[in-house]
């Protein structure tokens, strides 16, 4: 029985039902199953296949085929000269009444339960506009089984199927895009330094990134997905569990209530000081309902340490600046009192004014120190480079420092011509600082040696004293900002100078370090400076360097 034998109404109903059934297909599998079912019912087809054409590779992929009730897997064959290929090429349907007489011989690519080959065939293209998506082919073993009306019916079904395939492909494409975006997002989340926690509407932990795990559990696997935060194994969390709960509970409650952005900070003391900031944002769906929340965790520890250091620095600076101002003011007032009362002696006036001058110098030095410090902190330590002879510079600095002491003998030993393109004033500052320190930390006096060595690309300088020396720990931190200042709460003579020295040498691209055999064994401050390329001395062969030894003794400097 064929479509032709049915009533007009029955045929239309069948087309409607088939169309509706096909529209419900969610993937190619269900589309094939539906087609099979509908085609067997309407046309009593005996074999059937759905083939998709790939224009790029010019191949036809048989999604699936059916032989009576047996469903068989498909296969792939290249576009050739058979009936299927012809339909794809011409985009015209083909009705074959007697295959053995009308069409090229076809091979069945599976083991059929029926002997021989089908004689009747309908092959129709799956068309979307001009594009051929593939074919639907139905067969019967007996000849003359299909008519023109059957072809029209199959064409209708094919048009519907083509639309379904197009829409399936579109959603598949979207889902691939979605997958790509999702994996990108995953990559971002897993590499970002901030911790991210995602909670659902009831407060259960849905997801967290690596940083969140590291920040909250120290990388331990004690955080369990699917559990609310307050039921997590807090006790296993190495950082103050109670502080965390106490902070997070009200924060989460406010976020769940829909508050746009809630922030809180936890300061943990053990183990080690740690500051964590949390900011929660509600996740809302299209209908503005809160379906969960995103919690960002950030480690604020080093930020707070820097802030604390800055506060401390400000308080130390204000104290240190007020001290000389206080001396100047009270000294001036004292002088005025005594002059008005006519009890001031010339000696007293001289001494008082001397003290005022001295304190003004001290104030100016402090201001320079602070200015340098703020320049370094802001990364704006600019160098005025020009050709400098480090040997001459050292001799000048040595003479200046020697003038302040009788007990120390400052000696200079120079090998080669230590020239380079450097900032003369800044290097003088470094040398003065190192020499003053050497004098200060060798209170019993003695020799202080300055040795300069020159080679092809760099110059090194060493200031060696026989003073109190440094412990191993001190030697390690002596160039740190506030190394001593922290303990003494003073800017002057507290290692801030060495911090500035290090910054100056670093700005030149050089290094500075200290060696000491321990307490009481003196210390040696070393620095190296690269010589700038523009310096012609660099290209001079080493054999031309001469050894110059300059010795400046205490007596010489004073005379």
């Amino acid at each position, binding site marked *: 029985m064929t479509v032709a034998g049915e009533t007009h109404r029955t045929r239309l109903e069948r087309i409607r039902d088939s169309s509706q059934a096909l529209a419900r297909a969610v993937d190619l599998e269900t589309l094939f199953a539906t087609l099979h079912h509908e085609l067997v019912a309407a046309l009593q087809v005996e074999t059937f296949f759905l083939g998709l054409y790939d224009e790029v590779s010019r191949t036809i992929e048989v999604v699936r085929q059916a032989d009576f009730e047996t469903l068989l897997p498909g296969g792939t064959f290249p576009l050739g000269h058979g009936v299927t290929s012809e339909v794809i090429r011409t985009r015209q349907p083909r009705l074959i009444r007697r295959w053995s007489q009308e069409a090229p011989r076809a091979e069945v690519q599976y083991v059929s339960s029926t002997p021989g080959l089908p004689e009747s065939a309908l092959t129709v293209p799956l068309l979307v506009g001009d594009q051929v998506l593939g074919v639907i082919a139905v067969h019967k073993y007996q000849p003359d089984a299909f008519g023109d009306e059957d072809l029209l019916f199959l064409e209708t079904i094919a048009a519907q199927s083509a639309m379904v395939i197009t829409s399936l492909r579109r959603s598949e494409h979207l889902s691939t895009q979605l997958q790509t975006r999702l994996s990108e997002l995953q990559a971002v989340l897993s590499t970002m330094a901030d911790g991210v926690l995602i909670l659902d509407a009831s407060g259960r932990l849905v997801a967290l990134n690596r940083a969140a795990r590291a920040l909250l559990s120290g990388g331990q696997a004690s955080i369990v997905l699917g559990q609310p935060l307050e039921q997590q194994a807090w006790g296993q969390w190495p950082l103050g569990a109670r502080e965390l709960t106490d902070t997070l509970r009200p924060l989460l409650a406010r976020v769940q209530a829909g508050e746009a952005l809630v922030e809180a900070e936890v300061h943990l003391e053990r183990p080690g000081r740690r500051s964590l900031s949390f900011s929660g944002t509600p996740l809302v769906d299209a209908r503005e309902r809160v379906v969960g929340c995103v919690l960002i965790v950030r480690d604020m520890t080093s930020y707070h340490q820097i802030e604390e250091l800055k506060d401390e620095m400000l308080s130390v600076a*204000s*104290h240190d600046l*007020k*001290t000389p*101002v*206080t*001396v*100047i*003011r*009270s*000294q001036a*007032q*004292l002088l005025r*009192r*005594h002059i008005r*009362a006519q*009890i001031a002696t010339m000696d*007293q006036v001289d001494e008082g004014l001397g*003290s005022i001058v*001295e*304190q003004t110098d001290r104030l100016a030095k402090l201001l320079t120190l602070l200015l340098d410090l703020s320049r370094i902190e802001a990364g704006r330590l600019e160098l005025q480079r020009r050709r400098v002879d480090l040997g001459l510079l050292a001799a000048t600095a040595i003479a200046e420092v020697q003038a302040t002491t009788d007990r120390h003998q400052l000696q200079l030993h120079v090998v080669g011509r230590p020239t380079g393109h450097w900032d003369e004033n800044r290097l003088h500052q470094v040398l003065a600082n190192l020499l003053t320190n050497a004098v200060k930390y060798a209170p019993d006096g003695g020799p202080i040696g300055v040795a300069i060595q020159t080679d092809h690309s760099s110059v090194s300088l060493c200031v060696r004293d026989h003073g109190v020396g440094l412990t191993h720990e001190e030697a390690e931190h002596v160039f740190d900002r506030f190394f001593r200042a922290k303990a*003494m*709460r003073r800017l002057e003579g507290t290692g801030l100078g060495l911090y500035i020295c290090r910054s100056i040498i670093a700005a030149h691209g050089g290094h500075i370090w200290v060696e000491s055999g321990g307490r009481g064994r003196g210390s040696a401050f070393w620095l190296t400076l690269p010589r700038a390329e523009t310096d012609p001395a660099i290209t001079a062969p080493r054999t031309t360097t001469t050894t110059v030894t300059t010795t400046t003794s205490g007596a010489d400097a004073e005379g």
Partner: protein
Amino acid sequence: MEILVVEDEAALRHTIRVALVASGHRVLEAETGRQALARLREGRPDLVVLDLQMPEMSGWEFLPRFRAWPGCADVPVIVTSAAHRATLDGADVQAFFEKPFDLDALLDTIDALLAAHQPAGGRAAAATCDVGGGGQGEA
């Protein structure tokens, strides 16, 4: 009168000493809170001028020890500091001068506190004379 000046800045200590000596006082000097405690063994001062930020033992640490020292509970103490007054937090101090201070006002306050303290020997008397700081001295 004998005045103990506790101040780690030598130049300032010297200035205060010269000013006090010119006013007819005797001056004991100490660089730190610890040195000041050692000087108490030599006798009870009539007044203390005290700095706060000092090495070894700060003014904050010195104050309770001083008050607990025999006979020193009622000795007037004038604090001079770059730190804020609030850091004293209700300590038993008769006047506070923020650095840089007015030397004339400091000397006036010293005289007023000594005068008030001397005859009556009571704290109430000292408190009434506590306003001579030219705006800087505070009760």
